[in-house]
């Protein structure tokens, strides 16, 4: 069976659509969670409170240096022994959000640090309060430099959602395995899935580029 036949087949098309939908839902919700978490952790990281700084460093270090698969199994299988209260999809979204949140915190921090210190100093010199310094001077400049790395993290997040087939989520990569088994042709099945991923990934990349151009600082 050729690759295009998979897309032509009613059964496989609806399976692909269904599993793609799950992957996208997982990616969107976990990214939203990661964004909120990332902001909190980054705020803790740049705050003048030493305890919060250390907590932020520990958080990013732990979640960036542990394999996602191990986190997924630790929470689902290990947590399952200790009264972990959530279902599969919720667990996947939570773990992926915790993981990507650490990366978002790091890029937000480097975005904030990329704003020249003179900007904040000038804002303080004209008497702006801390909220004014952050809200009207530093953040608007930082957000622009942070869009491309955040876009890349969105794509990485989408790709990482594939790992959660290990806890039994029916997502896109699993669709490849199921279709391959059904037609006994794994080559076509996985290439068909690869095409779906390519569309999602490079489609996202185009949107990010557009966004970037829109928000670019005119120099």
């Amino acid at each position: 069976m050729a690759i295009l036949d998979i897309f032509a087949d009613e059964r496989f098309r609806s399976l692909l659509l269904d599993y793609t939908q799950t992957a996208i839902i997982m990616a969107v919700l976990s990214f939203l969670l990661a964004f909120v978490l990332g902001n909190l952790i980054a705020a803790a990281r740049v705050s003048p409170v030493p305890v919060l700084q250390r907590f932020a460093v520990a958080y990013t270090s732990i979640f960036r240096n542990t394999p996602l698969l191990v986190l997924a199994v630790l929470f689902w299988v290990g947590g399952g022994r200790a009264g972990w209260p959530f279902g599969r999809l919720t667990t996947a979204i939570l773990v992926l959000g915790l993981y990507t949140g650490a990366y978002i915190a790091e890029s937000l921090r480097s975005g904030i640090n990329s704003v020249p210190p003179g900007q904040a100093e000038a804002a303080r010199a004209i008497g702006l309060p801390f909220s004014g310094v952050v809200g009207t001077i530093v953040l608007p400049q930082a957000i622009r430099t942070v869009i491309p790395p955040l876009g890349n993290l969105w794509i990485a997040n989408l790709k990482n959602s594939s790992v959660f087939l290990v806890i039994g989520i029916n997502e896109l990569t699993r669709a490849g395995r199921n279709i391959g088994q059904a037609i006994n042709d794994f080559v076509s099945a996985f290439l068909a899935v690869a095409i779906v991923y390519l569309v999602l990934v490079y489609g996202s990349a185009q949107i990010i580029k557009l966004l970037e151009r829109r928000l670019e600082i005119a120099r």
Partner: protein
Amino acid sequence: MSSVLTEELGPLGRKRVRIATIVAIAVIVAFFAWLGRRLYLEGQFEGRLWEQFADGDSLRFLGEGLLGTIRAALMAIVIAAVLGLFLALGRLSELAPVRIVCGLIVDLFRGPPVLLWIFFSFFALPQILPGDLGVAIGRNPLIALVIGLSAYNMAVLAEIYRAGILSLDRGQREAAFAVGMPRGMAMRLVILPQALRRMIPAILAQLATLTKDTSLGYIISVPADLAGRGRRLAQFGTTNDLQTWFVVGVVYFVLIWGLMRLARLLETRQRRSLGAGGMDVGGAEADLAGLAAQADARSGT
């Protein structure tokens, strides 16, 4: 740590920081106390669930798994580094067809998640490779894991190489041409030696990411690496999954943290010796598209 936002605090600020410190400590302690109590009530701290990890045989079993993980990661990074270099040179070739084909290969392999290529190697390759080779892959998931990791990472490394080559001052190339070197020779003797040295931190950071991804072998039941050994250990112990994966996680963390640390160290050392010329280790995979975009901008395409 200095940041744009911090300045010397006055008495009021110092007082606020003290209050925030107390509140933060209270919240963090409360969270861990709550977590610890729940785990205690579930009986997760009982000695019998942990005693396995005080036993030499289990530790040796995990230690061998660690070696298996390192071996798989090293094999994959070497294969990926060599193939990636050829792809990067192909993308910078003067011949348009070579450039286009190499660009398509890079985009194809870098787009989908690495797990897809691991699955492809494990399930699809045995169906298309002739006889013995296919059988060998089907029978030994470790080979499939290394092939899958190599395929994905060669494309990622190709982008790192390309960014590194293009980040080099164009005067180097022009000078090589000016003394009469042909293209290939200039690349081999002048550009690559300098570019490769700059890329070492970025390649190391990618090795750390790749090492993380070796754990995906768990899904195709690779027996000999850390994750696979963890699975078997948890099966022996019947109910100590949480403890096993905690220990396995800590071992992975130490290994990957060490690699990232080394990459950062080399990066800062290079920054100092090269001025601003070094390559950003950053979030490795995450910053790659940025690196490539920078490279594109510099090459003016």
